[in-house]
């Protein structure tokens, strides 16, 4: 039992990363019917921006110009990086996808892959081939709950992720911007007839998705402090799988499927050798998709942003 609970905690942490990234895939698909295949790399860019912001803030603190406890620095890092990374998303939409709004979907997919390569190699050119390590902002403390070991970092990661997801849910269901996003997912052709600027909503969707990916990147950096320019590829593809599994365009679906992916991976690794982890985990997911090709909350031939 403790063994199971121990893995459950780990699964929640992995699931948080996947779910946060999957949300961006799903939201963009929901309103524009395209998969932003550069999204995994935006996660990477977010992690690096977080690295830059955290390094900068700790340096200021070390020089005595900023008297803040480390946890405040971490919160600031997350918020500032989410804000900055949202502009990366807006830029990707504006330069990469908007010119292709009426082009065949395959062009947009290829563009996404190219943007991903540009972000990876751009990072390489900028910072060189060395890996960077994310500054350790909080000291790891391990709590023992009746034999289940939980670190403060894991609690923080899961709590921050859930808070962001709840905030997103509130935003999409309560604000007029969220309402416009849902409307756009249902029938984007007539949205301008309501006096709603399509391009603003599209940019906003990219901004939110990218900010969530940045949060995932920083949380990942807190748990696994080594960053490299290609870290977004595997995460991106796995989160993409989660978005499909949840049902394209479904916010709830992407969240649940992200966590499910984390669970399947961790529990497969619990039983089988870890080298077989992804092989077995993704075979299971393939099997689920054979029986539910539209995912948990997806509908045939439609792309609707739902809650």
């Amino acid at each position, binding site marked *: 039992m403790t063994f199971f609970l121990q893995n459950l905690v780990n699964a929640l942490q992995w699931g948080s990363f996947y779910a946060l990234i999957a949300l961006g895939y799903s939201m963009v698909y929901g309103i524009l019917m395209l998969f932003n295949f550069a999204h995994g790399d935006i996660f990477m860019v977010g992690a690096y921006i977080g690295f830059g912001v955290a390094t900068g803030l700790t340096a200021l603190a070390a020089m005595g110009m900023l008297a803040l406890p480390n946890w405040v620095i971490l919160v600031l890092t997350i918020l500032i990086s989410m804000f900055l990374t949202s502009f990366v998303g807006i830029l990707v939409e504006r330069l990469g996808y908007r010119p292709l709004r009426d082009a065949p979907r395959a062009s947009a997919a290829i563009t996404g892959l190219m943007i991903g390569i540009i972000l990876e190699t751009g990072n390489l050119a900028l910072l060189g081939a060395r890996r960077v390590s994310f500054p350790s902002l909080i000291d790891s403390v391990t709590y023992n709950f009746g034999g289940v070991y939980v670190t403060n970092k894991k609690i923080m990661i899961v709590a921050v992720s859930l808070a962001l997801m709840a905030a997103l849910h509130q935003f999409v269901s309560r604000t*007029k911007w969220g*309402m*416009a996003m*849902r*409307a756009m*997912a*249902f*029938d984007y*052709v*007539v*949205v*301008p*007839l*309501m*006096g*709603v*600027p*399509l391009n603003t909503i599209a940019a906003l969707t990219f901004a939110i998705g990218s900010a969530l990916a940045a949060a995932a990147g920083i949380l990942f950096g807190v748990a696994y402090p080594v960053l490299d320019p290609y870290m977004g590829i595997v995460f991106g593809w796995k989160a993409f799988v989660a978005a499909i599994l949840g049902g394209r365009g479904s916010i709830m679906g992407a969240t649940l499927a992200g966590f499910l992916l984390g669970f399947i991976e961790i529990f497969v690794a619990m039983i089988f050798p870890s080298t077989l982890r992804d092989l077995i985990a993704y075979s299971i997911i393939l099997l689920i998709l054979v029986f539910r090709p539209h995912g948990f909350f997806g509908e045939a031939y439609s792309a*609707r*942003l*739902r809650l």
Partner: protein
Amino acid sequence: MLKVENLRVSYGKIMALHGIDFYVDKGEIVTIIGANGAGKSTTLRAVSRMVPAADGSRLTYNGKNLLDYSADRVVSELGLTHVPEGRRLFGNLTVLENLKLACFARKDREQIKRDLERVFSIFARLGERREQKAGTLSGGEQQMLAIGRAFMSGRKIMLLDEPSMGLAPLLMMGVFNALREINQEGTAILLVEQNARLALKFAQRGYVLENGHLVLEGRGADLLQNPQVQNAYLGG
């Protein structure tokens, strides 16, 4: 207030409108009748900037060049609203959300509140169903909501595409009575209809559109008596 000159629209190589001229004055009800495929919907879409007008077309609204405006600004800045064919409601949003979305660009909170109440007083059914998803409404209620939405988003002038489509006669009368009421409060209406008799009775002036050309125009009552119109559109 709305003036359209030499409006030409093509879809690829096919020309849908071959240079048409018409106008709508303040507070007026004007109709464009014509057969399926004559270009009626295209005319409305060109005015609301959903489809591009060809070079040489002149569309002005209170002296402003409509071609300078994007589709969303036509609504949010000029108050020119378009109720599209088939209503096109957001079925995943509630009745209230559909109406609120139509106020996306409006800032006048107090007036929005009054307008909402006005919509619910004109269409009592919508008030009863305000928390219901628009996709669950009946055809008549959906048309009411589509008109209510246009009412919320500007209502200086309303372009209506086949509001009678798919409605039983009684419901249809209800919808047109409501439109009359909205018009009497100052909203001009440009109505496109296949149901020519209904449209010509309802409108002060009418145009007849055939294969992308305006072939006749006149007062609604006169067009109703016109033998050409009677033969072609009123079943002889």
